[in-house]
């Protein structure tokens, strides 16, 4: 039977123009192509253009616009940037090479079929970003993009499925993290339809289905049932390469919004459906292609990295970080900048998060144990001592850490929106300068353009994002606690509050830390020692 909640929720695919466009088989390619062209321009300017970050398309568009727009898109819609990802276009060729020369490719090695590799890459990226001031180097920015293309191509040539997206891509992991709070989700419209489906096209390829159209035009889908295979064969559709089986898919984790499942479903039963933002964090069901959040240490670690990384990344922009680095340098007896930064990363991204999470999780587990004791009564206590809430601490942390996602995302949003709103319009003079240099534009370049909002609006906007994130995090902590209790207790808001309280305290501590960072004036230094490294 149709799920009434799902039926009431808005479905973008039913919207007049946008829905029709997204259902078009080549919709993703149509979005990727302009982004690829833009990327080509960025590469050209980054490698050969002026090596002054504020005047180069590479640095302006990547570190200002891409980051600003990606968080705004995640906030108001979903994972739109994976949807239009230009790195995936060369995969068409990679897939052909794999089939032709690599015997169909190999499965991604089991040992890295998780998020640990991606986590290491994200951590390495954060470090390299700070150490080599990537934001200040068009040349390095361009090389990172080129490396991205090369690695995506190599991984998808060697391995089956969307191994790069699911297990490697650091940008994709950030988008997965951010899309946990998004208001849109790709999901099944009518679960009953999936129950009777035998072909499961949304997950599996058709063995004889070609990758590209072989002849003729695609026919419109039948409204009463699946298309005949002979018809669908002409459409070149494929199922989800990230192994998210639609009937059991929950939420946005690992979903690149590639639209493959929408195009593959012969019943037109997959939609882009609205939901309460952050609501997927509240429960811990089994998720296709992922499992349960609480059982995934790698995912929990990745979430912790993104949450605490948001604070460290912003902290690195403000003046106190230089005093801290100097102090660390003195402690280490005149250490190199790399060592100073490594110590800050070690403390800020590993030691401090681990301590905070262990203490918070421990208090939550103690509260759960106490509740169980009270519920059982003293007479059973001795007998059941060994059975008392023996849930491992890592499971408790892995369950509740998702409550921090909205706050972490709020911090990223505050940080990136600061840059975007401060300099969003600088793209105009930089583009004018580019066009003027290649002979396509005459007249003066409007270098006076820059801020999108008055300067005095910036902190209130950042604070609103952070407060909203903290509020959503507190709600999520309470919801997670309610659902946690639902396993062994009847719904009890007071008991849920007790379980969630340590996480609420942690959220408030992080909120204060975030505000303390945002209230500082920005001061990005550390690039001048590199000034001689590039022409």
């Amino acid at each position, binding site marked *: 039977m149709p799920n009434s909640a799902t039926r009431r929720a808005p479905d973008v695919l039913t919207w007049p123009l946008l829905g029709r466009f997204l259902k078009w088989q080549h919709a993703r390619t149509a979005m990727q192509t302009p982004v*690829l062209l833009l990327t080509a321009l960025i590469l*050209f*300017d980054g490698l*050969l253009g*002026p*090596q*002054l*970050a*504020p005047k*180069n398309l590479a*640095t302006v568009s990547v*570190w*200002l616009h891409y980051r600003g727009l990606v968080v705004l898109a995640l906030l108001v819609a979903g994972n739109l940037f994976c949807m239009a990802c230009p790195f995936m*276009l*060369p995969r068409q*060729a990679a897939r*052909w090479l794999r*089939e*032709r020369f690599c015997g*169909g490719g190999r499965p991604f090695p089991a040992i890295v079929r998780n998020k640990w590799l991606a986590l290491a890459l994200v951590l390495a990226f954060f470090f390299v970003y700070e150490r080599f*001031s990537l934001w*200040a180097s068009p040349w390095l920015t361009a090389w990172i993009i080129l490396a991205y293309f090369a690695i995506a191509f190599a991984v998808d040539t060697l391995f089956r499925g969307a191994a790069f997206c699911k297990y490697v891509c650091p940008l994709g992991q950030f988008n997965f993290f951010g899309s946990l709070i998004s208001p849109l989700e790709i999901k099944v419209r009518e679960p009953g339809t999936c129950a009777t489906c035998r072909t*499961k096209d949304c*997950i*599996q*390829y058709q*063995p*004889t*289905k*070609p*990758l*590209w159209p*072989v002849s003729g035009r695609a026919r419109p889908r039948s409204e009463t049932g699946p298309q005949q295979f002979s018809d669908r064969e002409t459409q070149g559709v*494929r*199922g989800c390469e990230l*192994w998210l089986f639609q009937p059991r898919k929950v939420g946005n984790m690992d979903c690149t919004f590639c639209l493959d499942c929408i195009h593959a479903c012969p019943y037109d039963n997959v939609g882009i459906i609205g939901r309460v933002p952050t609501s997927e964090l509240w429960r811990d069901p089994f998720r*296709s*292609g*992922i*499992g349960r959040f609480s059982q995934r240490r790698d995912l929990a670690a990745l979430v912790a990295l993104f949450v605490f990384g948001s604070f460290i990344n912003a902290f690195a922009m403000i*003046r106190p970080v230089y005093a801290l680095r100097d102090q660390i340098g003195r402690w280490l007896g005149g250490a190199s900048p790399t060592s100073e930064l490594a110590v800050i990363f070690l403390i800020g991204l590993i030691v401090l998060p681990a301590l905070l999470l262990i203490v918070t999780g421990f208090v939550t587990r103690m509260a759960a144990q106490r509740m169980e004791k009270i519920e059982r009564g003293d007479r059973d206590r001795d007998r059941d001592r060994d059975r008392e809430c023996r849930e491992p601490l890592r499971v408790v942390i892995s369950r509740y850490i998702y409550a921090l996602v909205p706050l972490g995302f709020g911090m990223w949003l505050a940080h990136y929106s600061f840059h975007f709103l*401060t*300099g969003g319009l*600088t793209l105009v003079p930089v583009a004018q300068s*580019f066009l003027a*240099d*290649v002979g396509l534009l005459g007249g003066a370049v409007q*270098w006076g*353009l*820059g801020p999108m909002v008055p300067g005095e609006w910036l902190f209130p906007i950042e604070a609103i994002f952070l407060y909203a994130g903290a509020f959503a995090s507190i709600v999520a902590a309470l919801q997670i606690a309610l659902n946690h209790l639902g396993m062994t207790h009847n719904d009890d808001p007071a008991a849920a509050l007790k379980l969630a309280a340590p996480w609420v305290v942690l959220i408030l501590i992080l909120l204060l830390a975030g505000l303390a960072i945002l209230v500082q*004036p*920005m*001061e*990005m*230094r*550390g*690039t*001048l020692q590199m*000034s001689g490294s590039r*022409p």
Partner: protein
Amino acid sequence: MSLNTAIDVAPTLDIRRPEAARRLARWAAFLCALAVLSVLCAGCGRIQQTPAAAQDGYTVTLVAQPATPVVGDGTLVVTLRDPAGQPVSGARLQVEGNMSHAGMKPSFGKIRGEDAGQYTVAIPWTMGGDWYVDIKATLSDGRVIARRFPIAVHAK
């Protein structure tokens, strides 16, 4: 369906068809066109170099006042000397400050006065951080002397 099961049900593709090859060729042509376009653009003069160090023999020095500039109105003193070490007067100076990172519009200096090859320039520092100050001096004989100076500006 578990993850492993999902992986197992993904069979291989059969794309060994002439149309697939043609499609791939189209993609390759498209990518080659992009590369060619980039090369053509490169010939159009976008390539810019940082001002050369001192091949022209002139000496340009820059002193910030105060020595550690802070956000707000700042002053720069630019001294221009010819290869013989004599002060160069009457040059037309253009002073432009840019932050090292993207997202800030440039600050342009205003010449406040000149005394025996020493030019006083007012410039607004709009944000703390690393700046590059580009100085372009057009001499009376039309020659252009260009230099770039790094300056660290502190937040208030």
